[in-house]
């Protein structure tokens, strides 16, 4: 569980986060949504420790991040898996080497044990047979799956995903969404996903935080988002006719 209390962050005097409060629950897919410039990425980078907030507390399982020693912060980072928007795979390494990388860096496992774990994880993300391919030789969807495999190979407690299905076709995007949700439930991890994709919101949004102008404008679940009358949320989520029709159908009980 990650709890954020009164989080503030500014850049060059401009306040981007204006006092955010939210609890990201364990074993659930927690989604952060909002328009571009609403502070989603800054929020994520504060939680990852890439940015330091001016004010506020971020607690990892009850312990404030600011109270962590350097060693504890390093240990915490080993428990974090991150799926980047572009995959961020190391392009000088094969698929297998990419996935094995966290194990090589942070564990004392034997090579055979590492290979066994990598095979299991690649199997979990349906990527058997791509071990020796370079990232440039595989599709965008496969790269995302490798990225997920690398993020979960060291059995993290927290999984952060920055727009995991951007640039993917709708079918692959749904596969990725479902994969992340299954992994979250299977390994009981705290998953935080930043997304613009309303399909994802309606598909896997077990807990949703809607940001607007650096503030938490709305919070709820995917079922509640259908029923909300909050105009700021409905204007954003149902900006397309398709989603309006989906919502109407849902409300009419079709």
């Amino acid at each position: 569980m990650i709890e954020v209390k009164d989080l503030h962050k500014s850049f060059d005097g401009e306040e981007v986060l204006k006092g955010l409060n939210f609890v990201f629950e364990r074993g659930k897919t927690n989604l952060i949504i909002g328009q571009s410039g609403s502070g989603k990425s800054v929020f994520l980078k504060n939680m990852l420790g890439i940015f330091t907030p001016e004010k506020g507390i971020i607690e990892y399982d009850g312990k404030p991040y600011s109270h962590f020693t350097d060693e504890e912060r390093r240990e915490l980072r080993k428990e974090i898996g991150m799926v980047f928007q572009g995959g961020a795979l190391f392009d000088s390494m094969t698929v297998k080497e990419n996935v094995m990388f966290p194990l090589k860096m942070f564990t004392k496992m034997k090579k055979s044990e590492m290979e066994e774990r990598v095979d299991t994880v690649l199997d979990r993300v349906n990527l058997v047979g791509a071990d020796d391919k370079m990232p440039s030789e595989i599709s965008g969807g496969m790269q995302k799956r490798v990225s997920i495999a690398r993020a979960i190979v060291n059995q993290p407690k927290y999984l952060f995903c920055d727009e995991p299905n951007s640039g993917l076709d709708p079918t692959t995007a749904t596969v990725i969404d479902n994969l992340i949700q299954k992994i979250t439930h299977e390994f009981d991890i705290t998953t935080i996903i930043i997304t613009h994709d309303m399909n994802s919101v309606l598909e896997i949004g077990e807990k949703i935080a809607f940001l607007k102008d650096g503030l938490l404008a709305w919070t709820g679940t995917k079922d509640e988002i259908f029923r909300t009358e909050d105009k700021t949320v409905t204007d954003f989520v149902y900006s397309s006719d398709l989603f309006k029709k989906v919502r109407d159908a849902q409300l009419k009980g079709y």
Partner: protein
Amino acid sequence: MTYLHSIGEYFLMLKGVFGRMTKRSVLKDLIFKEINELIIGSLGIVCFLSFFIGAVVAIQTALNLNNPLIPKSLVAFAARQSVILEFSPTFISIIMAGKVGSFITSSIGSMRVTEQIDALEVMGINSKNYLIFPKIIAMLTYPFVIAISMFLGILGAYVAAVLGGFVKPDAFITGLQDDFVTFHLIYAFIKTFLFAFILATVPAYHGYYMKGGALEVGQASTTAFVWTSVVLIITNYATTQLLLS
């Protein structure tokens, strides 16, 4: 102010490079990989250039020695001095700033653009140490490249001077041994070590702190070449002033 900021940032980067170390077994593999890419991969062009520049120096010197009172062995002496003192350490380093420097900037810069450096940081890895330290260690073998360059430069001079009929073999060997000052070789290798450090770190700085996309990676590589060359030339002047004058 921008320059001062960059200089400060460069030294802060160096502090980070020698900060928390990457796991030893991983580092060992990275160092061998860098030696292969930066050093072994450059040997071909260095050998080619050294041999022919040595040859040209010998021919130029021979063609300009018209006075019969000046011994022909001076061709070898001039070739040796120019190759050991300047051509091999400095000229080859400028070439390496283009070849190795651009490679370092573009490889680190692409990693920045594609969030690979962020991925390292999020994992809790000291990305400066992981990416730059192995390059610095690999470049410690750079003096071997320069030693090969010196040998081939003088060999090129010998071949051109003797086969071209400008100098007899005995005279060339005599000229090569005339007034040899061991300290000149020490001076050349001292500055080679300094150049190696510059060649690894200045391009790395430009790659590590670059912002933007693919176009900016190209621009950063060009800027890195310019600044590496400038720093090399200034360092060359300073070391020459300090050690030889």
